[in-house]
Each structure stands twice: as structure tokens, then as C-alpha cells.
């Protein structure tokens, strides 16, 4: 009898101690993640909710909250009649092309640098340089390189005998491709580094057994390297798509959407709508569509990872 009483008392005490430590544990948990959580709450979560709400309104932030008018889906139906928005969206879809081109070039470079050259590290640094350079400086430099009449690129083309070289960034048809070339150039380094890390994690014995079977270089690439890096390819494809939707700096500095909106993108149109034309509601509905696209790509990633990637 006595025994059981002390036992229950003891277990009660340990239970109390345990719940006290539990409470302390919870408290320290909140203290550790508190600053980050609070920051994200104020700077990301609440703004996301506000974007959502404002996208159904007709409002300008200089007008004061009492002028806020909800208009349902009118912003969205207006957006799909808005020529500039549609062109910008179409350009964003074109920009997606940058990603596969980048991947092909950087995978080729990665394989060559990994297996076939001396000075590996030196090459890594060389191809990585554009990625760490500020996009503003790079854009300004390319403005001069692409200068139609006396820029080095056209002078070079003329010296080769091209009498009427394109005016690049000033030409409706060449402006967007020029921007895309620069984007490929800037992004190669990142893909290259990621690919090289992936190549190094391929087990060496796979290649050895391929050697025994007498497989040639191409077969080894097609049968071993390419499938083994497919998770990386998929990852780079998805992150590349997402970041191409976020392209803003290069457009703002290089072209400001010109000529005739031929290089405008959603983020740039959003920026001018919000901060130059001060149409907060309308800009917010664009922001929501942008969010929707990024979300769609993310869902595609979650779904696709299970289905297509060859581990």
C-alpha cells in the first residue's frame, strides 16, 4: 500500500517536472524562431494577404484607405484585355527558353571541365564571374557592346562584311533575343557549379564497368552521366523557370521594356503600374498572377519529381 502511494506521488512529481521542462522547451523554441518568424510575418505573410485583398480593389496607395473600392474580378478581366500585360506575359514565356539553353551549355562545359582539362578550378571561376557581377554593371556594359552604330559587336560584324547588322536592343525583333543571350551568359556559372557537384557524386565504378563493356564516350554520357544528373537537371529547370519569372533588374536597367514593350516583362510592368502610375489595386492583381505562375511551377516540381526523375 505504502509503496503504491509513494509511487503515485513520485510519478506526479516527475509529471510536474516534465510538464515544466516541456513548457520551458516550448518557450525556448519560440524564443529561437521568434525573430525570424516575426520578420517573415510582417515582411512576407501579411504583405501576401494584403496583395490578395488589394488585387480585388481599385485603389491607389496615395489616396488613403477610405478611398478603397472593391471591384471583384474586374482587375483580372481588364488585365486580359490589356495589351501591355499580355505582351509582357508572352515575353516571360519566351524567357523560359533561356533555361534549357543554359542547361545544355553548362552540362557540356561541366562534363568537359570535370574530365578533360587541367586547371579545373580556374575554369570554374572564369565561368562563374558573370553570376557574381552586379547585373546593373553587366547591363550597362552590354548596352555599349550592343550599341548599333559604333558598338564593338556591330563594328566587328561590319568588318566581317555584314553591311547592315541588326540594331540589337533598339530593334523590336532583336531586343528580346539579345536580352536572352545576356541572361544565358549570366546564368551559366550557377548551373555549371551545380552540375559539377552532381558529376562528382556519380559513383566511379559505373564508368569502370562501362569501360569493361567497351562503351564509347557518347554511350557513357547518354547511359550514365545524363540519367545520373537528371535530378539536378530537373532542379535547375524548375529554379530557372521560377527565376526567369522574377527577371526585373536586367530589363529595368537594359531596356526599360523598350522598344515598344518588346522586352517588357510582368515584373517590370507591375513595377511601373505600382510606382509610376500609382495603380495599387491593378498592380496587385498582376502580382497575384505572378504568384500564381510561380506556385504552378512549384506544384509541377512536387508532382514531377516523383514521376519523371530517374534516380
Amino acid at each position, binding site marked *: 500500500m505504502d509503496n503504491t502511494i509513494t509511487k503515485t506521488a513520485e510519478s506526479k512529481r516527475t509529471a510536474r517536472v516534465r510538464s515544466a521542462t516541456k513548457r520551458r522547451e516550448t518557450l525556448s523554441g519560440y524564443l529561437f524562431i521568434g525573430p525570424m518568424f516575426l520578420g517573415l510575418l510582417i515582411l512576407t505573410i501579411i504583405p501576401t494577404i494584403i496583395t490578395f485583398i488589394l488585387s480585388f480593389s481599385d485603389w491607389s496607395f496615395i489616396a488613403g484607405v477610405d478611398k478603397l473600392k472593391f471591384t471583384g474580378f474586374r482587375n483580372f478581366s481588364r488585365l486580359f484585355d490589356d495589351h501591355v500585360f499580355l505582351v509582357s506575359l508572352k515575353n516571360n514565356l519566351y524567357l523560359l527558353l533561356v533555361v534549357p539553353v543554359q542547361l545544355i551549355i553548362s552540362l557540356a562545359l561541366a562534363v568537359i571541365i570535370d574530365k578533360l582539362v587541367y586547371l579545373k578550378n580556374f575554369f570554374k571561376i572564369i565561368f562563374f564571374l558573370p553570376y557574381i557581377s552586379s547585373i546593373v554593371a553587366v547591363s550597362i556594359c552590354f548596352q555599349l557592346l550592343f550599341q548599333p552604330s559604333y558598338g564593338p559587336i556591330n563594328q566587328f560584324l561590319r568588318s566581317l562584311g555584314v553591311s547592315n547588322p541588326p540594331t540589337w536592343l533598339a530593334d523590336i525583333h532583336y531586343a528580346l533575343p539579345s536580352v536572352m543571350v545576356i541572361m544565358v551568359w549570366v546564368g551559366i556559372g550557377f548551373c555549371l557549379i551545380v552540375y559539377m557537384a552532381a558529376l562528382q*557524386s556519380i559513383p566511379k565504378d559505373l564508368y569502370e564497368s562501362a569501360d569493361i563493356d567497351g562503351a564509347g564516350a557518347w554511350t557513357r554520357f547518354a547511359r550514365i552521366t545524363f540519367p545520373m544528373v537528371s535530378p539536378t537537371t530537373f532542379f535547375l529547370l524548375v529554379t530557372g523557370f521560377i527565376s526567369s519569372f522574377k527577371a526585373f533588374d536586367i530589363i529595368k536597367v537594359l531596356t526599360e521594356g523598350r522598344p515598344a514593350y518588346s522586352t517588357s516583362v510582368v515584373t517590370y510592368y507591375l513595377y511601373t503600374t505600382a510606382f509610376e502610375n500609382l495603380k495599387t489595386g491593378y498592380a496587385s492583381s498582376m502580382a497575384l498572377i505572378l504568384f500564381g505562375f510561380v506556385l504552378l511551377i512549384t506544384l509541377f516540381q512536387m508532382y514531377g519529381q516523383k514521376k519523371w526523375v530517374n534516380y
Partner: protein
Amino acid sequence: MDKRKKGIRTVTTILMLLAGVAFVLPFLWMISASFKPEIDVFKYPIEWIPKHWNVYENYSEVWFGEHPFGIYYWNTVKVSVITTLVSVWISSMAAYGFSHVDFKGKNAMFLLVLMTFMVPSYSIIVPQFMIFRWLRLFDSHLGLILIGSFSALGTFMLRQFFLGIHKDYLEAAKLDGAGHARIFLQITIPLVKPALATYAILRFIWTWNDYANPLIFLRSDRLATIQIGIQKFASESGVYYSLIMAGTVSAILPLLLIFIVGQKQVIEGIAMGGVKG
């Protein structure tokens, strides 16, 4: 056979060197133009090594002329250093909390943090701008630092490393009576130091190169960072291309030095983030 392999290797190295030079040609052109007098900039054939040097004049005009490059630099250094420190500190705290502390609602909160990662920053600039005006953070370095400091990315990246620390380490410390604060500071932080360095360098580079945030959240010229400064300089100095190139070289150079010193961290950080997703 071995000799043949060496031969192939030498040839591809030479070919790749040529490709590499072609790849960085825009940089070489930029540097060379910044060293020349204005009339030589667009001379063709290109004088890669200038015949007439104008280095001192160009750079002193950029640094001590009408546009206060010194101030832009100082602003950028200040914002980048503080952002990096704050971000590393807050992110590692959150990473520790999410990996080694058990508390109610941990999974739900982590999911929420994960979700913020999917929100493109341009989708929320308008509300951020409004909130900053209400909180009087608009047009201040403090605001810019806050924007750069709270990113879920750092939390994820560092969490991987905190998770990699064996629980036994921490259990032993707990038995000795150490609380979470002490375990965090004295045990885990030293163990994840390389990861902190990697994240710090990446965050520094991102902040230094950030253009959109200073463009939107700053207005005064005396607060401008180098990215804003260089763009203003380029659009306002009209046709003085040698000066503009001296400005762009000045904007890139510090990062280049940091990258060369910390290239191992940068490359590892990129590779790690990439491979782990």
C-alpha cells in the same frame, strides 16, 4: 594510351582557355575601356591594351566628381555587412529552433516558413512599400537591412547543418545542465561555422548586388547604394563611356576580390544548395 590521353587533355585545355577568354570578353572590354581616354573607347579594331592611358583621370573623376561614389560605397558596405550579420544570426537561431528544440506548433510554423519561400518578392513589394511607409522605414537603411535579413532561405540552408549534428552531443550537454542558449552558442555554432561562413558570403554578395530593393525602398541620393549610384551615373553622364565603365568596374571589383578570397565557400554553397534542393 596514357600519352594520348594527356595529349587530348592538353588540347581541350587550350580550346577551353580560348572559350573562357571569349566568355569573359565583355569584362575585358569593360576594364580596357575604363583605362582609355574617351575618344579611344569605340576605336576599331579594339585596342585591348590601351595605346593612350587615362586611368587616373577616369577613376578620379568617377570617385571624386559630381557623383559621390565614396558615399555609395560606404552605404553599400554598411548595408551589406549589417544585413549579413543580422541575417546569419537570425537564421541560425531559427535553424537551431527548428532542428533541436521540441515545441508546440513547430511543424505548422515550419510549413508556414516554407510557404513564404514560394512567394516571389515582386508579388509583395507594393504592400511592403505601404507597410514601410506606415512604420517610417521607407527611405532608411534600417528598412533595407530588414528586407534583406529575413529570408527563409538561410533558415533552410542552415537547418540542414544543424540537423546533421548528432543528438548525443546535445544530450550530453543537457545532462550537464546546459540550457538551449548555451548549447546553441557553445556547441552547435562552432560545429556549423563553415556553413555560417558560406551563407554569410552568399548573403553578402546578394545584398551587395541587390538593385530592386534599394530602387524601391530608398529615395534620397545620399542613402543610395552602389547599384543605384552606378545606374544614375550611367544615365546622367550621357556619352562619357570611359567614365561609365570606370564606374562599373568599381562596382564589380570589391565583390570580385571577396569571391577570389572566399571562392571555396561560394562554390560549395551554391553546389550544396543546388544538389540538396
